[in-house]
Structure formats: C-alpha cells, structure tokens
C-alpha cells in the first residue's frame, strides 16, 4: 500500500476509506476493524460474534515461540487487515511493467501468457478466457450438488454447513495465529461434497481467484460427506510478490464415513532476496479430521517459497480404520528457514498414518522437520511409518529432524527412519560430463531425492512442481 493512500485513509473520521476503485481499512487491529470486515462481507451476526469471540481470546494469549526459526517481533497494530482488490490503475499495465526476473521464472515454468498476466496481477481489460471456463466448471459441479465457492459466499448461502463445521477442527482458541485468523480472515475457499459423490475434477483456487482476490488471512473449509471423494489443489506455482509480511491461513478438512480428501499445496511465496531481505512469513495452520470410519486425508505439500515457513498439516484420526498421510518437500535456499512437519493423532482403532518428508537445504538456509505421532490408549492396532530425509547443498546450511513419538498402547507399531545426505561437486561434475548443465543436474538430483513425494501430486501439478524444484535451487551450487 502506498504511503499517500495511507495518509488519505487516516484523514477520514472513521478511519476508513471507500472510493470507487478500492476499499481499504487502515492499519491496526481492533473491534472496529473486525466489524468493518464483517460488514463489508455482509456477514450475519453469528459470524461477527464468532470473530469477536476469537478477538477477545486473542487479547489474552501470546505468540508461540518454541519454533527454530526466530523472526523479529511483529507489530500487529502496524499491519493492514483488509484491502480489497487493487484498482486497475495501480496494477501493472502489461507484462512489460512487471519485474523481468519474475517473467523469466514464469517462462521457465511454461506458464501460458494469459496466466502469467493474471499471476503477476496485470490488469487485463479484455474478458478473461478463464471466465467462461470457470462457468463451465461451476455448472458441472452444481449438477452433482457440489458446493465450491468463496467462503464469504458460503457464510451467506450455506450458513448451516459453515456454522456446523467452521472451527470444529481448528477451534478459535487453538493458538495465536489460528485465533488471529479466526478474528480477521478475509476470504478463502469453501467446498462441500455431498454423500457418495466423487468430485469429477481437481478443484483448485485458480478457478475461483477471479471472484475475489485471496488475502493474507485465508480461511478454507472442505467437507467430504459420507462416501465422497475430492482432490483439492492450493496455491499457484509461480512466485507472487506480496507487500505484506505475514501470511496466516487456516485450512480445515473434515472427512466423514468412507470419505477421502486429498489436499495438495505448492507454495512459492516470495522468499526474500539473496541476502535474506524481505519475504513472506508463512505461518499456516492446516488440520484435517478423519471423523468417520474408513475415512482418509492425505496432505501433499511442496514448500519452496517464503522467508519462513512454519506449518504442520495434521490429521486427527478419530474414525476407526481411518488413514492419514503427509507427503512433504521443503526447500530452503539463501536465507530461507523452514520448520515444518505434521501431527498424526491416532484416536480410533486400526488407524494408520504415513509420513514422508524430504527437506532440502542450500545456501545459508535452515530446514527443520518437526513431527508428532501420538497414538492414544484406545487407538488399538494402529500403525505409523515415518521417513525423513534431508539433503544438504554446500557447507553453510542446516538440516534438523525432531520427531515426537507417543505410543500409549502396546498393540500399535511406530516406525521412524531418517537420513541425511549431501549433493557434492563430484556428482554435479559427473552429470555435467554427460551433457547436463548445472541447472539440469541439480534438478535431476533433487527430483530423484523427492520422487516419492512428487508422485503424490496430481499430474498437471507434478510437472510444474518438478521444474519449480530446480528453479528454487538455481545458483545454489558452484
């Protein structure tokens, strides 16, 4: 946000500025701001009450500080909590106005021109090609009774579902960032798959992004009713420049009897420059509840961006025979830091969980896997398998594996394996001698290392993710 606009915003009596092209709230966090957000979203009273409840809770709790990557204290009164889509005047007029570095990356990823414009936030006057595409999608989904819309729309149109499930996996009392999100979330996705429906396509935020630009405090809620299946893709695979520092999203998944949710993320927020200046703090809470028997939730994440990534997509395995999976690639380069992993909470009988984590560290980066496997007393005959592999590039980076394992009954089995290896110059020389350039060589070695996780991604995502893996580590060797 530009300085003069801020000044303009301050001039107004109520501190809010509303003009034709953009709506913004001033800096700071207080009840008025929350009321403002709720009002602008035309929310019912119960929603506002919910937010305010979270806010009053927030005032009494502190930020957690047990994580490995430390960060400078965030002044929450100095942040913006609401900013509507930028007007087209502020946006770059064409791709010529966009940072050439960014365009270069898009090209390498093979992103089509129209898509590039959209990702870079270029104001396009012509009608988006994808508008018609999006509509076709919507028709097809509606036919099956699937609800897929912005969560702000769901709050108005499907209050019974939102009321029942919002906060049921991540309660508003959970922890600082989750509570903060509950108070000020601006938008996100809502998905409901009815009983025995198999969602016919991969759902992705991409097809929704026109409707509303997602803010820094997203809230996503996905409910898979009995016997249903859905695969959801999150994030865009190109770097997004974001002037905000903190990104604190909440994602809740609920799988009822025999339902399955597959949630894939490719996160490539701005990581800061080579010297560690700038970049996003990606402090995200993601949690899924396998509430029904035989239900399954599978998280796959490829984390290549952000200055600090701090997240643990987790599964609460409540239903008997339910299954939780976590597949992760976390890449940190330059001064990036990641403290990521998962929590598998086994409550039901015969529950199974599997964790495959691949951490790659280059430059001066630091990469920590932290994971909890908690098998409850009543979770008889449960199983967990964990594999954590770390790959180091160079001598100045770090990799750490911190597993917490609690097995409270004797009929359950927990396995944990961990390895650490290093890419060395001889390996690269060997690849070079076979005609591969540095970038291809690193890509090949790293993709080999990550293979088990990349295989979990939906096809169209996997190809981009593979390229992204190579690009993220560019210039990190030799």
């Amino acid at each position, binding site marked *: 946000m530009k300085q003069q606009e801020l000044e303009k915003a301050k001039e107004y009596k109520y501190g809010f500025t509303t003009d034709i092209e953009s709506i913004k709230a001033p800096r700071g966090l207080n009840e008025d701001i929350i009321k403002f957000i709720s009002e602008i979203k035309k929310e019912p009273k119960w929603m506002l009450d919910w937010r305010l409840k979270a806010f009053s809770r927030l005032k009494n709790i502190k930020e957690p500080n047990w994580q490995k990557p430390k960060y400078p204290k965030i002044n929450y009164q100095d942040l913006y909590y609401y900013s509507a889509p930028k007007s087209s005047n502020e946006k770059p007029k064409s791709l010529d106005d966009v940072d050439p570095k960014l365009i270069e990356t898009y090209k390498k990823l093979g992103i089509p021109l129209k898509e590039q414009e959209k990702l870079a936030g270029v104001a396009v006057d012509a009608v988006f090609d994808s508008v018609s595409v999006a509509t076709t999608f919507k028709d097809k989904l509606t036919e099956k009774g699937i609800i897929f819309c912005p969560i702000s729309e769901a709050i108005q149109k499907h209050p019974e579902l939102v009321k029942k499930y919002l906060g049921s996996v991540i309660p508003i009392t959970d922890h600082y960032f989750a509570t903060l999100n509950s108070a000020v979330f601006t938008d996100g996705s809502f998905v409901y798959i009815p009983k025995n429906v198999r969602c016919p396509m991969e759902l992705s935020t991409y097809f929704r992004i026109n409707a509303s630009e997602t803010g820094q405090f997203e809230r996503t809620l996905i409910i898979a009713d009995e016997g249903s299946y859905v695969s959801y893709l999150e994030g865009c695979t190109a770097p997004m420049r974001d002037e905000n520092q903190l990104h604190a999203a909440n994602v809740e998944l609920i799988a009822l009897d025999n339902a399955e949710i597959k949630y894939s993320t490719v996160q490539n927020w701005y990581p800061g420059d080579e010297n560690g200046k700038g970049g996003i703090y990606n402090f995200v809470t993601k949690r899924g509840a396998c509430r029904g028997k035989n239900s399954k939730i599978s998280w796959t994440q490829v984390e290549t961006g952000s200055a600090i990534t701090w997240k643990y997509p987790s599964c609460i395995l409540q239903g008997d025979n339910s299954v939780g999976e976590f597949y992760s690639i976390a890449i940190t380069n330059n001064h990036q830091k990641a403290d990521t992993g998962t929590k598998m909470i086994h409550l039901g009988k015969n529950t199974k969980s599997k964790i495959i984590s691949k951490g790659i560290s280059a430059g001066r980066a630091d990469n920590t896997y932290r994971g909890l496997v908690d098998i409850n007393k009543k979770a008889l005959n449960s199983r967990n398998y964990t594999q954590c592999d770390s790959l180091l590039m160079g001598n100045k980076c770090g990799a750490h594996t911190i597993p917490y394992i609690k097995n409270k009954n004797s009929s359950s089995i927990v396995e944990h394996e961990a390895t650490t290896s290093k890419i060395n110059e001889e390996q690269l020389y060997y690849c070079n001698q*076979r*005609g591969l350039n540095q970038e291809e060589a690193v890509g090949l070695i790293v993709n*080999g290392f990550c293979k088990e996780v990349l295989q979990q991604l939906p096809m169209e995502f996997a190809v981009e993710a593979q390229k992204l893996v190579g690009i993220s580590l560019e210039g990190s060797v030799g």
Partner: protein
Amino acid sequence: MLEIKNLKASINNKTILKGLSLSIKPGELHAIMGPNGSGKSTLANVLSGKDGYKISGELNFKGENLKDVPVEKRAQKGIFLAFQYPLEIPGVNTNNFLKTSLNSLRKSKGEKELDSLAFLKLVKEKSSELGIDEKILSRQLNVGFSGGEKKKNEILQMKILDPNLSILDETDSGLDIDALKIIAKGVNSSRNSKKSFLVITHYQRLLDYIKPDFVHVLSDGKIVKTGCGELAEELEKTGYKKLN
C-alpha cells in the same frame, strides 16, 4: 580430432602436467600408460573440462579451442569420459539419467529428443550387444553397484551416447576377466574411421583385448615415450623405472 600442445595443468599450486603434447586423429585409438602419480587421471579431468585446474598450452577439439568451454558443452561436442570412480546418485533412476543425458546431447545438436519407447529400444539393443543385464538400468544410478557393474554401466553409457572421443580413465582397474572382455567389446564394437579413443590404463592386460594404434608412456606430467602396441608388452616386462 584432438590436438594437445604443450599442455600444463596445476592444482593447488602443484604442477601435474608439465608440457604434454598429443595428437589423436579420427579413427585412432591411443593408450596412455604410466606409473601412479604421473598425471593420467589429471589429463582425463582436464580434457573433460573439470573445474579447479590452472591450465596453459593449447587444447583443440575438432579444430576448436576448448579453453573456457565448460564441462557440459564439451560433452555436447562429443567428448565422453568413462570415470575411474563413477558417482552414486541416490533416487535417480539410471535409465532416466541416461535418457536425460542423451536427450540433452541430441538437443544441443538440434536433433529430436527420443521418447521413452524409442529410448528403451535403444537401451535394449545396446545392452544385449554388450551382454550387460539391462536390469541395472532400472536401479538408482550406481547406488549399490559392484565395482564391475559401475564400469560396465560406464561403457553402456558410452555406447548409447555415441561420442566422437571416448576417454577411458582406468576403466579396467579392479575388473575380473569377464568384465574386462565386456569393456573391450564395448570399445572394439564402437571403433570406426570417425571415432577416436584415449584409453588410460595401468596395465598391459586391457591391451590384449583392445589393440591400440599408439601407446604413450606418461611420466612426471610428460609423454616420455611413444610407440605402437609392442611398447605396452615391453613395459609389462621391464616396468616404468627404466624409462626415467
């Protein structure tokens, strides 16, 4: 094919090659023999363009000065090095590695990339020609390979990538007689009027199976003697000492 004139190379302020000259014409196979520490492997590394050496003298390949040409570009121009100690790369499927490599060489020549089917057909053909079990290709690159398997894999790569100049850096070391025959077969079946070879070896043994056009003796960073095939046999009897 290859013209080396007064080549000097040093690493960590230690001079290893001290004015080496060598000329290899298309279709020729040259063997380089020499005692430990004479600079044999350094020569192989320098020809491939490995980093870390300080170099002077002339190095021309197919009439082009190789100075400042990086490793992968030299490979793309047709220089292949069979490593003395092939590297292990976990998680990377050998087939996939070889396909990526072949296609990057083809791409650089402006040729069409091979799809998986065509590639697998080529691999099958070449591996059965050499009598190598193609199963090693579905394993991770050199991971858990025996010494012999690693060397065979190098020769199979050479066959598939089909370079103009193949440099074999002590490929015969530590091999049993059967593996040695496979290596020799790989080289002999590739020989024609357009391909050149530089075979670096400690022992005369390999030269029972591969008939060189020239044998050079490398000692203290220089070629001290050049002869034909018989020179190798002579060396085997008398040792290197007499030469100095």
